[in-house]
């Protein structure tokens, strides 16, 4: 233990524990599992249906990014080591978004129609991925602001942060 730690009394220690401690909503998020579905919701349906739409758009965005990652790695195998851990995050995003409820718009299962174009030069290809991550992050921020359900809002904000972080590690 450092001298600093030893000098600090218990009341001061508590605040560090607050920064360090288990976040307040952790319990709520774990307990709720998902936000209320339209079928079971007591409130007005419109915002919840809008949440389904937001979730569907986010699913589509993840699929588009995954397709770009796959095409980039296919064109530039040397970029696999750099992109693979980030690709895995998008797989997790997609799984979480799908696990939060049904997507009744009949879509969200297929990959994007057009195969993404990949630049011939690896640096340019990587820059295109970084740019796509940034665009997706911005869209997730807006979706989080629009979401009615607290869990969806938090998940979308976290995905936005993850993708903003991807952009940083890729540039």
């Amino acid at each position, binding site marked *: *233990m*450092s001298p*600093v*730690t030893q*000098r*600090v009394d218990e*009341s*001061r*220690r508590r*605040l*560090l524990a*607050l*920064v*360090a401690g288990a*976040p*307040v*909503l*952790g319990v*709520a*998020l*774990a307990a709720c599992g998902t936000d209320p579905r339209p079928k079971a919701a007591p409130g007005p349906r419109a915002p919840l249906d809008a949440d389904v739409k937001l979730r569907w758009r986010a699913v589509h965005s993840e699929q588009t990014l995954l397709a770009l990652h796959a095409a980039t790695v296919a064109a530039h195998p040397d970029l696999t080591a750099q992109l693979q*851990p*980030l690709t*895995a*995050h998008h797989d*997790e*995003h997609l799984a*979480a978004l799908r696990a939060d409820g049904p997507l009744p718009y009949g879509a969200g299962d297929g990959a994007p129609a057009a195969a993404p174009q990949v630049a011939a030069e690896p640096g340019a290809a990587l820059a295109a991925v970084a740019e796509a991550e940034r665009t997706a*992050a911005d869209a997730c*921020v807006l979706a*989080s*602001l629009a979401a009615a359900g*607290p*869990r969806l*809002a*938090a*998940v979308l*904000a*976290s*995905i*936005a*942060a*993850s993708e*903003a*972080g*991807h952009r*940083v*590690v890729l540039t």
Partner: protein
Amino acid sequence: MTTTPAPTPSTPAPAAADAGIEAAQAALAGEHACVYGYGVVGAHLPGDAETARDALATHRTRRDELTALIVAAGSAPVAAEPGYALPSPVTDAASARALGVLLEERLGALYADVVGAATTPELRAFAVRGVVAATVQAIAWGGAPTAFPGLDGRV
């Protein structure tokens, strides 16, 4: 009883009972701790002094903005502690960077709480920006990118 008037929906709930403000207070306490922590980080990063100063300025600004949001909601904002215990000793540039990562990652989790609990668009927007900014700053200090920053282990 049909004569009993229904509670008026526009009656504001007591500020203390607002989960969004409660979460915002926790985030404010986190910003206070970051302002303290970056003083320590900056002292051990002569090569990156400017980066640490910028981060400190950012946290001071957000602390003030968050304070204003809490005051506007009718609550008394939590004050800074006179000092904080460090989770581990900061003795060199590497341990200073590690503290920077830790501060930002934990702050990100506090802001993620606010995103879910916020009852006003202003607070929600502030918190979403907070999660993103903390994540980017954690990576800038050498933190590893993750799938769910702020929610790790909770999705």
